[in-house]
């Protein structure tokens, strides 16, 4: 429906059509703010849901960090919130596992997948490729509302009497399949599975839309090799999601069968809670293969959009073209392809055939090559730049630093021999929190600070942004560097406390330090929250192109209406990275400026396409 309106817009006299459009939306606030089919509004909906989930996920982590940092401390003061989960001043160990599980689930799926891709793919794809909206505004709306429904179910599961899912975010059966094994595997797990099934539907609806839009709705002149790297990243992320999420759906479905209909896909020869189960012939390893077939691409689904955003922001604020544009596309492509064939590196010691371990070690370590290329290209982009430290730029630089730190330790874990020792220890936790957790968060902050003016027509406060950045950046390193030490010492993850083992009797001080840093860094995020909400209403008014950027979204009005451009969609003549081109009047030339207007800076082979 929206589509026909939009096509009409292009044909009818521009100003008139725009006027009609606005009127139409002003009349129905319900359709403007709630059941909106405008990609920009849907993006904001995803963003605000994402921020809500991020604070909840962060709060859960603060709770279990208190337990880990001060195992002797009394939790009585939290009884008003946690109720029966505090038993005689102590946190219930099963609730601890539930906290860990929900923290992971929320952060990986609801924040860094839906909140990141959902926000920026939706917001930037039509704006940067020059389209009025997504290919299907209606499907896009459905994508958000499926996510919303999924969110409600996941949220409600937190309040179940038996607690939410608690088998770890990877929900390995049999633990997740058997309510006898832990109470969280009862109703909580059912809610988890239903919520995730809806979540996957939301992702697929969104993904189909992103791909279709990028392929079909690019404006005149916007060839695939003139697209900003953000769009390349979103595009390949969507492809990855479309290929891998259905496999998680299959895994979840079989788990539902095992739980509710007595099948034995994952269960075999089990005696639990005083009873021998009749299931035979199933394999828990099967679930791990299916889960990680999504689970590994998932970390790239999380990190690729962040890489795209960071590439764009680095180039804009270093006032330099991104170095090796085609190599950057190639490396995104390489990472995307390889990410589909490395999943079993999570399973080196799961009992699968060691030969498979060799194969997956080989494939895993290859993926370091395109990642390294990206890092070197970012460094080369900064080299001899003219760097403007906007908050977004600080986050982009922080992203590169964190991605290097976290990525390098992946080379240790990807080595099956070394992984024998490090598997499931805090080393793994530290590694992925840096490389996909914090880095993706930095990418997300980078995106929010950079595109806030386009989203809300106002600027976020820079000074608060700086404070927020330095606090978060410091916090991330103070939390995760010591966590590597704890991991090398063999501390297992998902442990309620380390007091039962002599091997782990040391490092109580370090755990306390990590907890304190983590809680401080979490509290620091409220600076962002204040800045975000305050700036929506009271921020300084933005200009059309506050960062002097080249991409198409900055050619729209300060507050673009539904349909994005009031008149015709601009045509594109050049790549998005003509920054500081020798001979040009300004240090940037937007994509919609034809070469005929920039004679002084044209390279020998640069001509307009007509």
């Amino acid at each position: 429906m929206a589509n026909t309106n939009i096509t009409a817009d292009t044909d009818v006299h521009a100003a008139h059509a725009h006027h009609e459009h606005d009127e139409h939306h002003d009349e129905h606030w319900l359709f403007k703010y709630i059941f909106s089919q405008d990609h920009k509004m849907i993006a904001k909906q995803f963003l605000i849901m994402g921020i809500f989930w991020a604070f909840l996920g962060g709060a859960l982590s603060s709770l279990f960090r208190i337990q880990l940092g001060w195992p002797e401390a009394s939790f009585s003061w939290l009884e008003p919130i946690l109720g029966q989960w505090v038993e005689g001043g102590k946190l219930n160990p099963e609730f601890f596992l539930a906290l860990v599980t929900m923290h992971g689930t929320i952060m990986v799926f609801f924040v860094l997948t839906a909140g990141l891709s959902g926000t920026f793919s939706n917001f930037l794809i039509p704006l940067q490729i020059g389209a009025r909206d997504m290919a299907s505004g209606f499907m896009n709306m459905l994508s958000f509302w499926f996510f919303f429904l999924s969110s409600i179910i996941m949220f409600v599961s937190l309040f179940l009497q038996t607690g939410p899912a608690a088998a770890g975010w990877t929900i390995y059966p049999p633990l997740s399949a058997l309510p006898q094994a832990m109470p969280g595997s009862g109703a909580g797990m059912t809610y988890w599975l239903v919520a995730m099934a809806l979540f996957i539907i939301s992702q697929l609806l969104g993904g189909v839309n992103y791909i279709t839009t990028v392929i079909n709705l690019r404006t005149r002149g916007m060839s695939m090799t003139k697209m900003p790297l953000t769009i390349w990243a979103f595009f390949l992320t969507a492809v990855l999601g479309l290929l891998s999420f259905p496999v998680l759906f299959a895994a979840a479905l079989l788990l539902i069968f095992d739980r509710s209909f007595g099948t034995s896909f994952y269960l075999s020869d089990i005696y639990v809670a005083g009873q021998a189960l009749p299931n035979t012939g199933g394999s828990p390893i099967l679930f791990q293969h299916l889960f990680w077939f999504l689970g590994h691409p998932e970390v790239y689904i999380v990190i690729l959009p962040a890489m795209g955003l960071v590439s764009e922001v680095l180039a804009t604020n270093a006032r330099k073209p991104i170095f090796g544009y085609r190599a950057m596309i190639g490396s995104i492509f390489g990472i995307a392809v390889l990410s589909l064939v490395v999943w079993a590196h999570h399973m080196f010691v799961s009992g699968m055939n060691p030969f498979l371990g060799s194969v997956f070690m080989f494939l895993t370590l290859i993926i370091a090559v395109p990642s390294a290329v990206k890092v070197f290209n970012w460094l080369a982009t900064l080299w001899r730049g003219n760097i403007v430290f906007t908050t977004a730029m600080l986050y982009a630089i922080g992203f590169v630093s964190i991605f290097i730190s976290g990525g390098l330790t992946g080379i240790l874990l990807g080595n099956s021999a070394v992984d024998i020792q490090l598997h499931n220890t805090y080393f793994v936790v530290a590694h992925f929190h840096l490389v996909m957790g914090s880095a993706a968060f930095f990418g997300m902050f980078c995106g929010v600070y950079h595109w806030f003016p386009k989203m809300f027509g106002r600027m976020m406060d820079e000074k608060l942004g700086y404070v927020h950045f330095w606090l978060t950046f410091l916090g991330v390193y103070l939390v995760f560097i010591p966590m590597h030490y704890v991991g090398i010492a063999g501390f297992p993850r998902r442990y309620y406390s380390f007091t039962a083992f002599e091997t782990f009797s040391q490092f109580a001080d370090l755990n306390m330090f990590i907890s304190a840093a983590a809680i401080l860094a979490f509290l620091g995020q409220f600076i962002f929250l204040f800045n975000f909400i305050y700036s929506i209403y009271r921020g300084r008014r933005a200009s059309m192109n506050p960062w002097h950027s080249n991409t198409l979204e900055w050619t729209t009005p300060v507050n673009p209406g539904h349909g994005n451009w009031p008149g015709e969609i601009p045509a594109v003549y050049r790549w998005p990275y003509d920054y500081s081109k020798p001979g040009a009047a300004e240090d940037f030339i937007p994509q919609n400026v034809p070469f005929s207007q920039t004679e002084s800076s044209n390279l020998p082979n640069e001509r307009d396409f007509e």
Partner: protein
Amino acid sequence: MINVAIAISVLLVVVVLVLLFRIQTLASIFTGSSEKRVSHSNKVNAILMLLFLLIGGAAFIWSWIKDQDKFILPVASEHGVWIDEMFWLTMVILGIVFAITQVLLFWYSYKYQHRDDKRAYFFPHNNKLEIFWTVIPAIVMAVLVFRGWKTWTTITNPAPEDAVVVEVVGKQFNWVIRYPGADNKLGKVKHTLIDGTNELGMDFSDKASMDDFIVNEIHIPKGKPVLFKIRSRDVTHSFYIPHFRAQMHAVPGMPTKFWLVPTKSTADMANEVGNPDFKYELVCNQICGRGHFAMRAVIVVDEPEDYEAWVAKQKSFISSNPDLLTNLKGATVPALNAAPAAETETPGENAAEKAEETVREEATL
């Protein structure tokens, strides 16, 4: 009262912060810094980048040196040394790359901060550079893959024929340890035979079961290959012995294994770390429920002759639980005190209660 005081002070702090924020905003409007392309903050941020590199880098090195002795567990197995070598080889390479890239990142950020009189260098691509930094990482990775693959295959090769066999079975929330006894053969097990006494569901119609013995502590001989046969009877656990650099999941329905050669007896290690009470510990390293964090067993590495003496002292499981044999003979007649769990109702429930009690006991550890 104290709560009110805390609430008021938090409120005051927030008010002060908001006021500071307002003053800062007004000041930036007054000085006009908000209108300029870059404000004074650009320089401050650039300097902070450099400081972060210097102070952060120094703090990192200091903390590493300070804690290194603590976080590297002494190694007690033959293959553990190879794993550590692999670890350190990789670590050195990573350290070099880490240092170079981080230094460049923060140094460039500082050095190329914005200047009004300057323009960035238009440098969109350079194929030679691209090829250079694609090929170099590829070669380094190839070396690491090759080394890693050799280490991995040596570790995972089949155990020698004469290896000492120990079966370790994970259950919520402890480990059950079984030795094959004199015939060096573990008897058959069936999960339907499990009850409160027969925790592994040992099938005594299999002769090989008769001399199997079950113990609380794992004993293994120093300097001899030891093959751990790993199983689980409920959910997935992970058999992890950090000092030996050994780990393998315990999977219900799928036996797994790991073999190693211990190189230091418990006494040797106690000397090395200067702790007379030192114990090797077996850790569960795969989330398995409430008592996961306390699922522990002790491993004792004996001198070979002490080990032999220890084995000789052990009594077979069936000799301490002869009831199980009587039940076996009268399998068709419903037994009164104990019976295979799944078949008959009442004793099964008894077993369930018993098992639950154990679960509760261990969970409160």
